[in-house]
């Protein structure tokens, strides 16, 4: 139950993330000047605007703000003055002066150029900025105004998205549903707003399914998807709500009603004739979707019945067998799952799944036996199956067998020799054969990873000098890894009880890379372990 709730939360979080991400992308359209407008500007105005825009693109906010300010001073009466002020305000937001941006920027755009497109964008930015600085109540009223007055504008759609976000934070489910409905059914879907509306329809459907409002949920999804895709999205969006409803005794009847309605909808989608391959495939997929719903509704008998019915109607193929096997595996009956895999027409795919199943059951003997069968029947992919087999040995801590296989692979598959060398070295390391591991890492061409691993092995062997030398070589050869390598020198010296050298190394990290996160770690370590305070230069916000 917890796992499923977690899954649902992850799904919602992903949807919210996608929502937010698309919004960020779309906001850039809000403050872009149209070509028509650009054409109307005088040459001098264009020049000044170009300069400002260049700095804006380069994210040099302070200079860009000054340039927009200069534009406003020089060409106050220009057609693009409102645009310049809007951009100036965005620069202020980027420089974390949001209050200044709202009061002296966005609101001035609305007050001085109320009929311009920039005013609509500015009204949205007022709300969004207020939301971003935590003033949700004020943000709500500002965003509401934009959403109501400009429902068909990109700003209006973005305002609704921001309002839905606030409702999520405040756990105001009613408001959230209301806004998602507006976005799904009422908002204008064009090139710019389509993605927000589509994401909203998915979120709304999920909410409606959790209330067992099946028809409305399907209707919401139907605004975005049609035909086969609609059916699969209906099942996909209803799966988690259905499982959640099934978990609670009080909502079980609701869940059953939802499942019945979903099945009814899926049955209704079936093509009347199944003469061509496309129709057959569609009808079969619909049956699998029905099985999916039945599984979520925990009706095992009906699932079995549906499998038989599919087998009768469309014959037994690998797709059906995989579904059956998944069903048995989900019920904890791996034996039956493997039986189904064993009936696969594509023997290789079936055996691969059988091997995976044995691996999950931690049955090494059967796993390797299955891989051996694969080796016998699939001579073209010897390397793949040997590597899988070696992986299984490693998984079960049979390091010698794994190493033997990797070495064999190294001779047989010369094209990937370095890869097998690396795997051999890693297996030796996992087995605690530090010296052997070092030998193989030394032969690898992967720099600096091989040096890193060698150093770690030397540390295990208490060979401090060798480890330090290797870390120094990494620091000299890869500037991105240098802070981490130098920090490790500190830890290595510490392990060797050379406190003075360790302190020197930690101090060096702080001195050479004060802005790096490893310096922060070194700083904290020096302070907590040695009570030494070292400056990282202390900096001001960038």
């Amino acid at each position: 139950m917890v796992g499923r709730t977690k899954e649902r939360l992850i799904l919602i979080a992903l949807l919210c993330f996608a929502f937010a991400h698309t919004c960020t992308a779309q906001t850039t359209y809000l403050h872009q000047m149209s070509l028509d407008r650009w054409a109307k500007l005088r040459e001098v105005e264009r020049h000044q605007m170009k300069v400002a825009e260049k700095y804006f693109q380069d994210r040099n906010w302070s200079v860009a703000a000054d340039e927009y300010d200069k534009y406003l001073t020089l060409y106050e009466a220009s057609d693009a003055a409102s645009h310049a002020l809007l951009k100036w305000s965005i620069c202020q937001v980027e420089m974390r002066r949001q209050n200044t941006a709202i009061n002296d920027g966005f609101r001035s755009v609305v007050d001085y150029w109320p009929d311009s497109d920039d005013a609509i964008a500015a009204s949205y930015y007022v709300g969004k900025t207020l939301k971003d600085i935590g003033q949700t109540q004020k943000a709500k009223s500002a965003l509401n105004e934009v959403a109501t007055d400009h429902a068909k504008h990109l700003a209006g759609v973005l305002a609704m998205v921001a309002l839905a976000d606030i409702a999520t934070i405040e756990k105001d489910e009613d408001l959230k549903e209301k806004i998602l409905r507006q976005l799904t059914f009422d908002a204008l879907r064009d090139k710019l707003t389509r993605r927000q509306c589509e994401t909203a329809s998915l979120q709304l459907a999920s909410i409606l399914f959790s209330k067992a409002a099946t028809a409305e949920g399907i209707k919401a999804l139907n605004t975005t998807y049609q035909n086969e895709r609609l059916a699969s999205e209906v099942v996909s969006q209803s799966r988690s709500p259905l499982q959640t409803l099934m978990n609670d005794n009080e909502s079980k009847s609701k869940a059953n009603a939802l499942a019945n309605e979903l099945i009814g909808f899926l049955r209704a989608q079936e093509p009347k004739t199944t003469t061509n391959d496309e129709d057959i495939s569609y009808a079969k997929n619909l049956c699998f979707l029905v099985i999916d719903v039945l599984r979520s509704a925990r009706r095992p008998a009906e699932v079995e019945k549906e499998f038989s019915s599919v087998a009768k109607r469309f014959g037994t193929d690998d797709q059906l067998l995989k579904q059956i096997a998944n069903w048995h595996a989900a019920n904890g009956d791996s034996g039956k799952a493997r039986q189904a895999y064993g009936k696969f027409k594509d023997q290789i795919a079936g055996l691969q799944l059988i091997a995976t199943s044995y691996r999950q059951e931690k049955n090494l003997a059967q796993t390797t036996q299955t891989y051996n069968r694969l080796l016998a029947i699939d001579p073209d992919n010897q390397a793949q199956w040997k590597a899988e087999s070696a992986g299984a040995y490693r998984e079960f801590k049979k390091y010698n067998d794994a190493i033997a296989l990797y070495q064999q692979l190294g001779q047989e598959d010369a094209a990937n020799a370095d890869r097998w060398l690396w795997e051999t070295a890693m297996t030796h390391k996992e087995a605690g054969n530090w010296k052997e591991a070092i030998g193989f890492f030394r032969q690898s061409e992967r720099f600096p990873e091989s040096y890193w691993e060698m150093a770690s092995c030397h540390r295990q062997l208490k060979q401090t000098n060798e480890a330090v030398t290797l870390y120094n070589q990494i620091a000299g050869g890869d500037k991105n890894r240098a802070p981490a390598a130098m920090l490790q020198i500190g830890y290595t010296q510490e392990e060797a009880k050379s406190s003075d050298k360790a302190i020197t190394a930690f101090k060096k990290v702080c001195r050479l890379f004060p802005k790096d996160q490893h310096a922060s770690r070194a700083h904290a370590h020096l302070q907590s372990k040695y009570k030494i305070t070292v400056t990282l230069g202390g900096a001001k916000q960038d």
Partner: protein
Amino acid sequence: MNSISVPGRYSTAVKITAGYLLVWALLLLETRTLQMVPNWGHLVLGLLSIPLAVYWWKQFSRARNQQIQRWIIGTVAFVVWWQFTLVLLDSLVMDAARANIARWGTAGLFLIGLLWVVWGIERASVHYKKLASNHGAVTTATAPIWNPLNLDASFYAVQWWPLRPAPILRYLRSPGNPNLLPHGPRSRKLDQSFFALVTYTAAFLLLALLFSQLGGCREIYEMPAGGGEQQQLAQVVKIKKVIRKKYIINPLSSVIFAVPPIDDVQLELTEITKHAYQIGQGEGKGAGFSGGTFRGKVRFIRLEYSGGDWDQDYGVGGDLNMLLEYGIRTQHKVAERTESRTIGQLNNFPLGKSPPLVYMTGQRNISLSNSEVKTLREYLTDKHGMLFGDNGGSRHFHNQFLSMMNRVLPDVKPVPIPLDDVIHRIPYQIPFLPYVAPHGGKEALGWYKDGRWLAYYHPGDIGDAWSDGHAGVSADIWESCYRIGTNVTFYAHSEYSKWLDAQKKD
């Protein structure tokens, strides 16, 4: 049992000592609750214990059979002198030493108590053994013995140590049935000792817990009274003309000497702070807060929590520097030292008299119980408090702090605090966020609700910049860090004062 007797000639001394101990106990209770008696009162009382202890020691030091009396004197003297040392260190503002003495003293007290328990049990066992040998036939026939001091108690037949659950469960199911008890040679004494140790430890912990909870059954926080403006400190330049005397000379004179410059006017520019004595909130006289009292002071309270090093840069040379700087910069009355409280102790402050700001730092884990989370939430929302979080040195602490706040204020999301927000403008304009090391990023985060910041989180070890040596950062950085500290402290107090004013009006 043999009783410990005090000869009749000591009756006056006993009365004096008992009276003294009674006063001492009352004062000890007072330090944990009212805190009205000044430290010197406690010190004087503590000093009085020395002649008393010397007197009693002399009385019992010679005779060999009075060893127990000497132990009693030693025990009482230990407790009194331990507390005296704590008060003394408290007065000398030696926080670290005080904390150590408090810790080791508690351990010592536990040990001494344990010795007394062992001694008492031993005496009791001997006593009951004697009784049993006198009436052996009678006792074996009677019902099971329940007195734990008696070695023949029925439950000592169960093996309590080393712990074996099966016989204990069997015994608990039917306590009177001797057939269910394990057979074979085993030590009842060991069981009794184990039992005594467990019981004593539990009792000691319980008492310690009760005593620590006493610490502020009623505690109040009062801001300094006064008023002032919530305005930015404006630097103004005062100009003073210094005109030197000039010689009026005739350039055609035959006397030759250096001709001084004709416009010898020197300007003396003095930068002064316009609002230096007016920072505050409300309309009272002097710098302070309208919601404050004349006894009130701005105090710097940090939160103690489990899991981490809450006491980083604590006290003299640490956060005390910030408190003193705040006093100098705002002219508000400030406490002489910084303090610490557990989160649970925030409950001891009543509504309207609770600290407007508490500080929290560290670099390891923050482990709060559900009740602590609730207390902190109540403090922030109902009691109108504010939390000042500071990342003392790791990304881990950053995540821990955010996760803690997510539990405390689940319906408020952290947002980066604008640099032009009131908290970054008054009394000092903070153009950039200064930090010692960007352990948790480069942005100050805030939790905003109901028109104010409930929590301010500095990601870059601001506490290190306040401490002696300023973590080696340059003067403009640590100066900026003091300014942020001043701003946040002032913000919390002025918001609290406004809230108190609003409540009065209601």
